[in-house]
């Protein structure tokens, strides 16, 4: 069986090659991510990944080891090995086959249940949670309203009276409570260093609660495809000291206001640089705004909940969107009758 020996050699060589090529995640990036979390939520997610990997290994290592061994040992040309062509059942083996995976799934199920309750994205981060997960809270919560536009994120800080496009800034140690929606098609918000993602959908509000334990930057990105500029919908999310945060707020307050006309322009499809051009601003990088109307987020959600049709000209993201024609409802009334 010469041929079969060649096959063996090739399979073996390949395994070695594959192992050599596939080295784990490189450390070349500086920003925080799933593997290098900034806060307790992402940290717990990484821990879950670690333990899930370990426990599943119990079930799959026997395959990686057993298959090559069986194939080699019981190859046809080896007449020293046993041959039991009629053997087809063994109670003990059955018990192991069903029992081991079942036991693993029980453990796995308990862990995942604990995890989803503990780091439920809708759960506000409070002293109780901090105690349970062993981290510290240092200061009052910050509310951030996130609006997904094509192809940029708008971050509204209603209590501070500012807004920002293309950059999210949060103070270290303070719980951040986000409400999310979009003013176009569906999107998904993810800042890996802080927490996993949550969908953002027009006319609806979802929530995400995070906290950064140390200074650093991660990427706030959209992962749900929403058109040609999709790849550019990535903004740095910076966790900074309280002092830096206040300073940032002060600069933003001095910036031009995000009034209704400005918002209508901003909502046009395009990346941050395009928005900058449309608004007649010079320079580059993220855009800061003063926020005249703290209810802006609610009015954006309410756009789709007035009970009247919203023609494409009035829907940001549509090809026929016309900033002159599109007007947000006057109040955030529409949002209050539904909170999904």
């Amino acid at each position, binding site marked *: 069986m010469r*041929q*079969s020996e*060649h*096959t063996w050699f*090739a399979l073996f060589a*390949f395994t070695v090659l594959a192992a050599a*090529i596939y080295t*784990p995640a*490189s450390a*070349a990036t500086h920003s925080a991510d*799933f*593997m290098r979390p900034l806060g307790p939520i*992402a940290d*717990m*997610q990484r821990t*879950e*990944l670690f333990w899930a990997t370990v426990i599943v290994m119990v*079930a*799959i290592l026997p*395959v990686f080891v057993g*298959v090559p061994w069986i194939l080699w040992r*019981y*190859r046809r040309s080896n007449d020293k090995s046993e*041959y*039991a*062509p009629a*053997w*087809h059942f063994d109670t003990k083996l059955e018990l192991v*086959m*069903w029992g*081991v995976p079942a036991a693993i*799934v029980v453990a*796995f*199920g308990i862990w*995942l249940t604990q*995890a989803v*309750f503990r*780091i439920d994205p809708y759960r506000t981060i409070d002293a109780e949670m901090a105690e349970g997960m062993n981290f510290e809270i240092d200061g009052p919560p910050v509310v951030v309203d996130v609006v997904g536009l094509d192809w940029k994120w708008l971050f509204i800080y209603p209590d501070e009276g500012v807004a920002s496009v293309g950059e999210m800034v949060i103070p270290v140690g303070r719980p951040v409570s986000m409400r999310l929606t979009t003013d176009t*098609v*569906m999107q*998904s918000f*993810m800042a*890996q260093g802080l927490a*996993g993602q949550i*969908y953002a*959908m*027009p006319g609806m509000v*979802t929530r995400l609660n995070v906290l950064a334990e140390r200074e650093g930057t991660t990427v706030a990105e959209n992962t*749900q*495809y929403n*058109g*040609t500029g*999709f*790849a*550019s919908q990535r903004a740095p999310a910076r966790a900074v000291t309280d002092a830096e945060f206040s300073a940032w707020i002060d600069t933003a307050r001095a910036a031009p206001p995000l009034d209704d006309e400005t918002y209508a322009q901003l909502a046009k499809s395009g990346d941050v640089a395009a928005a900058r051009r449309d608004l007649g601003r010079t320079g580059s990088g993220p855009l800061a705004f003063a926020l005249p109307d703290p209810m802006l987020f609610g009015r954006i959600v309410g756009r789709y909940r007035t009970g*009247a*049709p*919203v023609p494409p000209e009035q*829907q940001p993201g*549509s090809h026929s969107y016309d900033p002159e024609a599109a007007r947000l409802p006057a109040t955030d009334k529409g949002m209050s009758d539904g909170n999904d």
Partner: protein
Amino acid sequence: MEMTDIFGRLSWADLVLLDVFRSPSVDTAVSSGAAWIMVLGAAAVLVWLTVAGRWGWLWRDWLTTVDHKKIGIMYITLGFIMMARGIAEGVVMRSYQATAYQGGAFLSEEHWAELFSTHGTVMIFFVAMPFITGFMNYLIPLQIGARDMAFPVLNQISLGLTGTGAALVMISLALGGFETGGWTAYPPFTGADFDPGPGPDYWVWSIVLSGFGSMFSGLNFAVTIYKMRAPGMDYLKMPVFCWTALCTSILLIFALPPLTVAGLMQALDRLLGFHFFTNDLGGNMMNYANLFWMFGHPEVYILILPAYGIFSELTATFAAKRLYGYRSLVMATMSIAVISFGVWLHHFFTMGQSPSINAAFGIATAIIAVPTGVKVYVWMATLWRGRIRMTTPMVYMTGFFILFTIGGFSGIILANPAINWQVHNTQFIVAHFHNVLLPGLIFGIFAGIHIWFPKAYGFRLHERAGTITAILWIVGFAMTFLPLYAVGLLGYPRRSAAFDDPAFLPYMYVSLTGAFILLAAFCGLFVTLWISIRNRDSLAVPLGDPWDGRTLEWATPSPPPPWNFPVIPQVSSLDAFAKEKAEGKPYVQPAEYRDIELPAPTSAGMVVMVSTTALGFALTWWIWWLAAAAAFGLVAYFFVRSFFEYPHIVIPAIEVQRVNEAWIEALHLCTPVNRDHEDDPRNRGHAATDMAIAS
């Protein structure tokens, strides 16, 4: 009369073929080039058919046949044609991403989006589905000892509807382009407000129309298995492949309707201004996500179960051993089928539902891993203490064992919502589903082709070429997709046209290299076929049993006659044929021969295909007169048909006897060969069984 009355919204500007002349660029060269390749390819086939005078052959022997074996072969051929497109797109996409560092890859972003959307749609609906439907078609009646499907004409119509879906996706290549919202086509992005068309319309009609075909196939297979098993073949004496086929059929029956409904609701939104999934007036895209995945999750088991069936048959055959744990396998298959309806939410743990819902679906998902794990162990136990032949199917099986286990591992990881939130919608998912689809489904199919090609064509595929190709698939797969796990963990979204993290570059290059190896592997399949055809005399196995097979189909000549069996066999055990061989009494001959009635050929399938293609095309382009004409034609055809009795052809007993006795005589003239000579011109398909040694 206005032009729009005749052509709807179709205009010259939609002719992709001309794009490159209108505005020459790399981008238009690729899209127009692809369109030209398709048009010229189709033209070349038509010219060849005409010049070689093959139209009659094509029509009589193939397009109008109701023989399940030929229908099966046509499904698989369709799968390969579409796969050529899907693989080409995959390689272009990998090249694109490898050059997408900080943007500026060689195609437009619009084009990129169309690529991943057509690639996904084509691969799932017009490669994977035809492959498994083709196998079930070919094998079910032969394995259960029947002459055909329960509804042979419906079977042909199902194929026609699948052809319709594939045709619409192909037409979009040359006319107007496809949608850009991925194979899942989530509204509102694919809604009329954001994409007036025709792309999403092509998607809707190709999915809805072919979806009917798949559902009919499911009904047909299930009834065939319930009603037409040979006498004596209880459920628990059925070959495992038939069990997996039965479970897949049940899934087809119940999983396709939600997809069809979701598609039709999209059509209502798009054409008649409904608001099921729009942003305004109470429309809700979350309902679409639920409907889609109520189909989508069972769909992955629709695809993988028949591959499990093939792997089960092949471990037993190539280990020359009885399958270990038949009942365990059957139970595992059934439980997978049932549980698969209760896990769809794991495709959107990120939609903001309560933790208890996420936990419930996370646990349900993990539970499916139990029967799946059992299957892998069962196959290992089957190989244990066997006499394993490292033939091409076993090489695929080896790749499957190792790689699929990695895919299952990432699947379990994804079942934990807390982890899922971090990698959902990233390249990790791309790695995961290719990891189960390629080593699972596709390797299973290719292994199956090596096993049953000799049954269908009477000669084996060249072993060495086959093995090399299989190794290329394994290596190519691992290089292309394993690196994507890493970039996914680092947050590279799926469907993303660019990246700005230089750390991704090495992974992208390895992945690109892998894609070229996969391309070579795909070509390897045709090289194997070509070499085998050239050597078909030395590879011939007309006597029908080249692998020392275990199930009824191996007890027929290769290729089997249109009536499969001279008389319907009597079955007394599992692996009936293997048992007869082990006892030294195979090939029991009928005491008497009878006339055999078979359904006559019909053009019903072609009528359905042509009229529904016209219908889908017309609804896509708003050509209302054509839509009305096509719908009317279809209804009228079946109305008129219903007045006539369906014709049959009768094969006289004497003919059946002649064919059968000629085969038996050839068997007697040929010495049976043992497994040492499997890959040897002496193997004419008369097997001396290894099993006899021990039992």
